[in-house]
């Protein structure tokens, strides 16, 4: 390949500079391998194909969809989805920091939203915008008093600017019931990013237990015991296990059985209260975890 064209060369610093006030910019090369549920993958792949088929769609008088709202339990990979999607298109992802938009001064939030979209316009559609926790800006409009008026005004600005935005916009929320219906409708697609299935849990456990490398049977057992856990919770548990293995002996705690280690870990991390805890969070589950070969084998050549 010859050298990359202009757009790629001037990209990174310029884009980060333009958007730094309101957003963190994630570059395509930094995207992680996504571990997403099959239905979510299908939605993402279909959308990518659609954007690439812009011309064919034009022939039948329609345009590719340009915005999507991701919703689902916390920690299920909504940001990973957005980052991978942008990376596949070769575009940076601007993760908007809601707190940088919200201001205590009257009218300032709306004005900040305006400034953000103006900065986005300067990138000429070469950056995907991502509003994480969009409910912070787009909660349901309640009454016409006090701060609610200001919130409603800001939301109006957001609705209008998203409508007029010519690039690709993504937003995520784990409080879909709390979202203003007008904002919900403003997106071309609403994609549910749900809890991982057994295969994804298996992969996530492998990923976050490394350099420890339990056998496939043991990993399967862990995947079963963590049914219903989000990727974020799985990560917390697996990292908790590694932390306990390193720190435990230093503070005089025993780490010579799987049961002891997992008991300690699940005591300090738990799924959100509204979800049924996976089996690992009760005694029977911990008894089963005791069957894992201990100490866990370590992958050769790993860190």
């Amino acid at each position: 390949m010859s050298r990359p064209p202009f757009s790629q060369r001037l990209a990174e610093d310029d884009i980060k500079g333009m958007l730094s006030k309101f957003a963190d910019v994630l570059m395509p090369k930094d995207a992680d391998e996504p571990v997403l549920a099959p239905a979510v993958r299908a939605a993402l792949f279909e959308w990518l194909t659609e954007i690439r088929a812009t011309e064919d769609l034009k022939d039948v008088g329609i345009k590719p969809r340009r915005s999507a709202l991701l919703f689902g339990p916390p920690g299920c990979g909504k940001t990973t989805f957005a980052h991978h999607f942008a990376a596949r298109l070769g575009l940076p992802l601007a993760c908007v920091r809601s707190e940088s938009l919200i201001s205590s001064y009257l009218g300032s939030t709306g004005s900040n939203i305006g400034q953000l979209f103006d900065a986005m316009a300067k990138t000429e559609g070469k950056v995907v915008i991502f509003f994480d926790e969009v409910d912070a800006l787009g909660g349901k409009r309640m009454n016409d008093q006090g701060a609610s008026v200001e919130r409603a005004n800001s939301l109006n600005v957001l609705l209008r600017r998203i409508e007029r935005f010519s690039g690709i916009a993504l937003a995520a929320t784990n409080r879909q019931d709390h979202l203003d219906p007008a904002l919900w409708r403003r997106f071309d697609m609403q994609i549910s990013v749900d809890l991982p299935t057994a295969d994804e849990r298996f992969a996530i456990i492998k990923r976050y237990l490394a350099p420890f490398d339990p056998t496939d049977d043991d990993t399967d057992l862990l995947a079963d015991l963590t049914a219903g856990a989000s990727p974020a919770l799985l990560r917390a548990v697996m990292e908790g296990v590694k932390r306990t293995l390193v720190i435990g002996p230093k503070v005089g705690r025993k780490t010579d059985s799987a049961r002891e280690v997992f008991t300690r870990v699940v005591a300090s991390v738990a799924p959100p209260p509204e979800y049924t805890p996976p089996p690992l969070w009760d005694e029977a589950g911990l008894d089963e975890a005791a069957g894992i070969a201990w100490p866990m084998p370590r992958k050769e050549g790993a860190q």
Partner: protein
Amino acid sequence: MDTGHNGGAAADQLRGFIEEVERLEIEKQEIAEKIKAVKASVKGAGFDGKVFTQMLKERKLSDFEREEFQALCELYRASLGMLNGTPLGEAARKRLMPKPPTPPAGGAPEDDTELTPEVPAPEPEVNLREARSSGRAAAKEGKRIIDNPFTAGDPRRAAWDEGWCAETGSDGMEIPNAWRRADKKKKVPDGDEKPEGDGKPEGGEA
């Protein structure tokens, strides 16, 4: 502004900076006016203003960039039937490019009409084929799908991605082999119909 009783050295320093910037701003404006005057004389001397500005732009490019830009312009003109070429050349072009030029397949806004080297080119089918096979080769070498060498909006990017996916038989989001069961006869997980790994390079799939 008087420094008052709170000023001191810091205030002086601040004022120094401000005055420096103000002075530079004035200079900037003066230079801008001079440039404007030169451009006015260019027109006065009978040169075409638009072409003159275009030359200014092109002189900023390196030889490589200029050639690339010109090649793209030619391609665009040819696709739009603006070359008034010979019948033979025209026929060859039609054979190579059955379709009118495609705008960027993704990312760029629809109103992106600015004439700069970064406008993605409508690539002849033959280049798309090359991009597709280079995507296939990359997948065989174990490169990640996001290591696509083509820029956003370039149709070759989509072709490379397609090639990668076709080679691995996946959507580019398969779980890497390092995190999968080595043993093929493992249970089918809840609702997931993904095929099993087969020892291909990372990310590879049967």
